[in-house]
């Protein structure tokens, strides 16, 4: 119960937090009248800060964090490897290169989203095709495909950085790669939300089968699963969710690896529970981290940096506390 409520609580709290002070009564008032479509009798500046700046950012943060964590959990099960994260098939590297390309070619936010999303998907499609040298998609070949595609796109990204104009394009690329929610608007939620929602819904629906797939291909087959199709569904859903998240937020590492483990420590390894809990924990975690990013210093700290700095020690603390969770 607490796990389900947590993202909503932290979204509410993050509406109060920031350099422009807004008290809770005002926040609740604004939420109340906006959600019920009533006219608001509160100063416009408060409405703008709470409804147009903080709320979309918090919602987007929750969705991005949830998507990264849920795909990480799904991939860990699928690849039977607890060290796998949402970027294993190259979606982050592909998206990074796509974003850099769009920054150099178009200088437009819309183009960055589109390119990041499409190249993220393209990277996974390439990894998947590489893995199909034999019949079926052996896990080891998928991982290998992901490694190959990731390194090629990383090299292309370096090339893009090298060719970029160092006065404006290069900083834009570097900042995008560090991850940020600063530019979040409702339109972002609407557009990127579609692939994220499809991916998350698919993973939640198929979550029990991820248990069976984690038994290995031969056993999953003998237990009665069409391994190729079920693997394909999980990969497609996790990729849609991750690509949708990454294209609006930039590269945010760590969430897709560690949040599923925190979930494993809290609720165990049964994907029936772990998959939805991972989404919830990822959402909560990223909103909190983004709040810290906004208030810690005068200017914002990029999200990708903070997730690692805050997440690492927290993970060690949990490891100690739960004695590793039965590994």
């Amino acid at each position, binding site marked *: 119960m607490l796990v389900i409520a947590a993202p909503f609580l932290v979204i509410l709290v993050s509406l109060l937090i920031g350099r422009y002070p807004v008290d809770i009564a005002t926040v609740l008032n604004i939420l109340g009248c906006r959600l019920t479509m009533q006219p608001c009798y509160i100063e416009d500046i408060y409405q703008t800060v709470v409804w147009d700046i903080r709320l979309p950012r918090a919602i987007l943060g929750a969705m991005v964090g949830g998507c990264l964590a849920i795909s990480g959990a799904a991939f860990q*099960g699928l690849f*039977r*490897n*607890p060290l796998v994260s949402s970027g294993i098939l190259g979606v982050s590297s592909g998206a990074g290169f796509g974003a850099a390309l769009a920054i150099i070619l178009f200088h437009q936010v819309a183009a960055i989203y589109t390119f990041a999303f499409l190249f993220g998907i393209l990277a996974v499609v390439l990894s998947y095709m590489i893995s199909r040298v034999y019949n079926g998609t052996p896990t080891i070949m998928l991982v290998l495909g992901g490694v190959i595609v990731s390194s090629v796109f990383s090299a292309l990204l370096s090339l893009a950085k090298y060719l970029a104009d160092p006065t404006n394009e290069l900083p834009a690329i570097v900042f995008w790669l560090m991850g940020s929610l600063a530019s979040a608007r409702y339109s972002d939620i609407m557009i990127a939300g579609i692939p994220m929602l499809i991916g998350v819904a698919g993973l939640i*629906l*198929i*979550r*029990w*089968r991820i*248990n*069976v797939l*984690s*038994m*290995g291909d*031969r*056993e*999953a*087959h*003998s*237990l*009665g*699963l*069409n*391994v190729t199709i*079920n693997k394909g*569904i999980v990969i497609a859903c996790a990729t849609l969710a991750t690509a949708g998240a990454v294209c609006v937020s930039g590269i945010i590492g760590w969430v897709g690896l560690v949040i599923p483990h925190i979930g*494993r420590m809290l609720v*165990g*390894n*049964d994907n*029936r529970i772990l998959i939805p809990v991972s989404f919830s924990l990822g959402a909560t975690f990223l909103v909190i981290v983004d709040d810290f990013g906004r208030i810690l210093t005068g200017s914002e700290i990029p999200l990708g940096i903070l997730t690692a700095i805050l997440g690492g020690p927290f993970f060690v603390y949990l490891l100690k506390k739960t004695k590793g*969770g*039965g*590994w």
Partner: protein
Amino acid sequence: MAPLLEVREVSFKYPQALILNRISFSIDPGEVFCLLGPNGCGKTTLLDCILGWLKPYEGQVLINGSPISRMSAPQIARQVAYVPQMHQKTFPYLVRDIVLMGRASFIGPFDVPSEEDVAIAEKALDMVGISRLKDRPYTQLSGGEGQLVMVARALAQNSPVIVMDEPTAHLDYGHELVILETVVELVKQTGLAVLMATHVPNHVYYFENQGVKPRAALLKNTQITSLGKPSEVLSEQNLGELYNIRTRIINCALDDGGQLKQIVPISTINTNKGGNSLENI
């Protein structure tokens, strides 16, 4: 009436090598069929063909008369369950969650197990006698207990046939017997058919001694060289040819008056030197 499981003229080859050449046999309900052969002779390949995991390039595997090449993975799983030789454990799932996975072929792609599935899984745990372990992470079990979990998972599939690939290969002396006893009990109680690949000829004699009427087949150089009752197949002569060893079959009387049959190895045969061949035994 068609046999429960029929392997008809099955051949399988990898690009470089022929592995199975026109293998045929059939299995009836309540039967224990043991498959013996040296390492690398194709036992696991044959089992994979029967599970539908590999496709034979010639011949067919039929269940109740219908070919599995035309069946989907869930349809096959409802007929044939599988106990792996060595299960690679990854995540510390609870024992009951593992056994529940045996229900996968009955559960829709976007569904989760129902109360009924849970009840069937619990019954399977009970039949194997490991209900006490159900809330433990299966990564913390001993090898023998882990293998019993695999047997329970196969039972939860409610299939008329269970295929076991060297189910006792990594187990100690005691746990090996636990698995064999469990198999005997299940076959006697439920009329299940068991197809078991094994390296131990005495497993076949064990089943015979326990009164389940096993049959054995020897697989060597892509073909079944001998098939039938234990006494016909597992002769000193046949095992000598199969493994290049000298053996002796011994009978001893048990305290309760029953007869116990075992085969014991004596020495390897060095074919290069001659002189030490089977005729000299």
